């Protein structure tokens, strides 16, 4: 890029010299900015727009795409599986995000006060975040097994309780997948919350103590409000994560992906199957457009609700 500019400069020295300092600076700035913009345009925006176009076609990889209007969308909205998947996706979001944020905040809040083996405990919480989702999915999948293999059912039967079907139940399967998914993300959220808590000036706390506020009031009036930027970041970040959940579900149900009876299937898994198992690229593109819209609306909504009130 620099050499291209240099060449251009050599070719028209007088033109370049005539420009004043600030114009030159702008040109330089745009030259550097052009690189990521071009990159994004080619790698992100172009495929995104192509996906919008593909969603209006019947492309199946093999034959040329034909324009079929909104037929893919009609098919999708008439498909009960799509609505089931839609509901699952929001269950992952609406249960996963608040539960994971509350747990991680509570842990961060108390961990911040722990001095004994602080680093070690923090590392323990962070460890699952470093583990591959696939490996974790498989370990948990075996935890949930029926007797005589499953650890959890082994424990239940030792204390005289009935064994639970977990992943083999249309009701329990989704929560069973959410548990490791939440657990895996905790470490990251705890670290961010702790950084946020530590960034609150201690003078605020001292002033509050002098004024005679109790722990609960301090938490409510100082810690939580001042953590708002951190919370906004984590809410958006973890919502997008749960809306895009895939690895855990796929690895924990790979014999019957998203099953049993679509009870755990999130929209990303449906897209994957439509595209790479049934090769209905057009239909899969229509599903990605819906996912894109959901992500956009949810993110904008959260930013609006949690915005800074001026």
């Amino acid at each position: 890029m620099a050499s291209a500019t240099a060449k251009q400069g050599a070719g028209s020295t007088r033109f370049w010299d005539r420009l004043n300092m600030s114009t030159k600076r702008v040109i330089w700035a745009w030259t550097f900015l052009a690189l990521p913009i071009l990159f994004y345009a080619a790698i992100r925006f172009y495929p995104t727009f192509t996906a919008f176009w593909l969603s209006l076609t019947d492309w199946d990889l093999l034959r040329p795409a034909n324009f079929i209007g909104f037929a893919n969308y009609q098919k999708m909205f008439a498909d009960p599986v799509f609505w089931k998947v839609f509901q699952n996706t929001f269950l992952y979001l609406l249960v996963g995000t608040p539960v994971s944020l509350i747990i991680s905040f509570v842990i961060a809040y108390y961990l911040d006060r722990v001095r004994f083996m602080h680093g070690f405990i923090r590392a323990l919480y962070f460890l699952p975040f470093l583990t591959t989702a696939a490996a974790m999915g498989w370990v948990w999948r075996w935890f949930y097994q029926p007797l005589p293999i499953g650890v959890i059912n082994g424990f239940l039967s030792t204390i005289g309780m009935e064994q639970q079907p977990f992943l083999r139940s249309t009701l329990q399967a989704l929560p069973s997948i959410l548990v490791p998914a939440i657990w895996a993300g905790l470490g990251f959220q705890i670290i961010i919350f702790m950084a946020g808590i530590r960034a609150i000036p201690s003078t605020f706390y001292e002033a509050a103590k002098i004024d005679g506020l109790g722990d609960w009031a301090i938490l409510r009036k100082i810690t939580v409000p001042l953590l708002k930027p951190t919370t906004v970041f984590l809410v958006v970040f973890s919502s997008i994560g749960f809306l895009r959940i895939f690895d855990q579900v796929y690895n924990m149900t790979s014999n019957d992906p998203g099953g049993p009876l679509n009870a755990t299937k999130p929209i990303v898994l449906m897209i994957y199957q439509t595209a790479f198992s049934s090769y209905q690229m057009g239909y899969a593109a229509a599903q990605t457009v819906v996912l894109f819209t959901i992500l956009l609306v949810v993110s904008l909504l959260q930013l609006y609700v949690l915005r800074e009130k001026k």
Partner: protein
Amino acid sequence: MFSKAKIAGLAAGISFLALGSAQAVEIEYWQYVFDSRVQAMDQLIKNFEAANPDITVKHTTFPYADYQTRVVAAKVAGQGPDVVQLFYGWLDNFVSGELIQPLDPAVFPTAEIESDFFPIVSAMKRGDSYYGLPTAVRSLALFYNKALFEEAGIANPPSNLEELLAAAEATVKRDGGGNIISEGITMDMAGQDHHWWREALIRQNGGVPYDAEGNVAYNDAAGAAALKFYTDLQTEQKVGLVGFMDEGQAAFRAGLAAMTIDGTFRLGAFESNPFEWGVVELPADANGVRSNYSSYFANAIGASAQGEEKIAAEKFLAYISSPEAMEVWLDIVGELPARRDVALTETNLNDPIKGPFLKGLEYAHTTKFYDEAAQRQTAIDMVNRVLLEGQSVEDSLAQAAAAEQAIIDAATK
């Protein structure tokens, strides 16, 4: 050797067509990665190149999960393989996508194909043309754990469904709470059981899974009886549990299942089982009727192979579907030869492991799949609705039939 002479004759016939193209031709062969298959193919390529010094074969492999996508992507990019391996169930997609071309009947005479190969090869025929030939075929059989059978005091493995139920009841182990801790028979619709249900149980109950036009035909009393037999294993007899140890084959390998239904391709994995096991034909019904499901990967000629590459590709395809190649494949991969005279030898039929699979081939059916994964899913869901949601067998069957017919309609429209 007789078979070698036959190949030499065939090769000579083809090379007559190739006269005048003396310089080296390179053709590309594609298959998916599976250790023993790759080894066997390398061996075949070595033999072929020794016999045809003017042809080199480039062997390219991809992981199974990506395989179809790669073939399709290569076609879009205009760089397809000259000879390509495909599952018989993908044929319609490959033909309509113009990924492969029909075999030239002058080189591969239809009458010879139909007399020499097992009848299931007809799944590679569309109209009057064959689109590919298999090297090896697979069928299903009942594996049983000899140690568990001995422990339960059963002398002979089951030969019909009634004996199967008795053996399962005798071998199943339950704890004080009634939970199964070792299965009598595995239940895994995501594995091979959906084939057992489709092609064996339905037929044994007097029905057919699909009609002559390929439409769903199992939504009747026969289909319901077959489904009830299967789900009863868990709900009535309580000798198996879907999801036990995750997969049927895992339970069997761990020695926690007395019987499992699986295919030839499992032989390699079961070889290292730390217990004695045996194989018998899939159980017959009360009238002695047997059925089986057979499947195979065939080799076809890529659409882009033209001119001398096409001639070389035809030579190579002829070689890898020859009796000699099938013997190499049987030795290294363990899959059954697709030619009747190579497969049904005295030695093979008397082999305690290969025998039951080979006998199964004689009466096997090959389901014409349009979207194998999606059609299997309809069977998985059908069983789950009965087992998990308490839906009646008839309703669940009707729903599965409608869902599968929709897949067939979408594919054939």
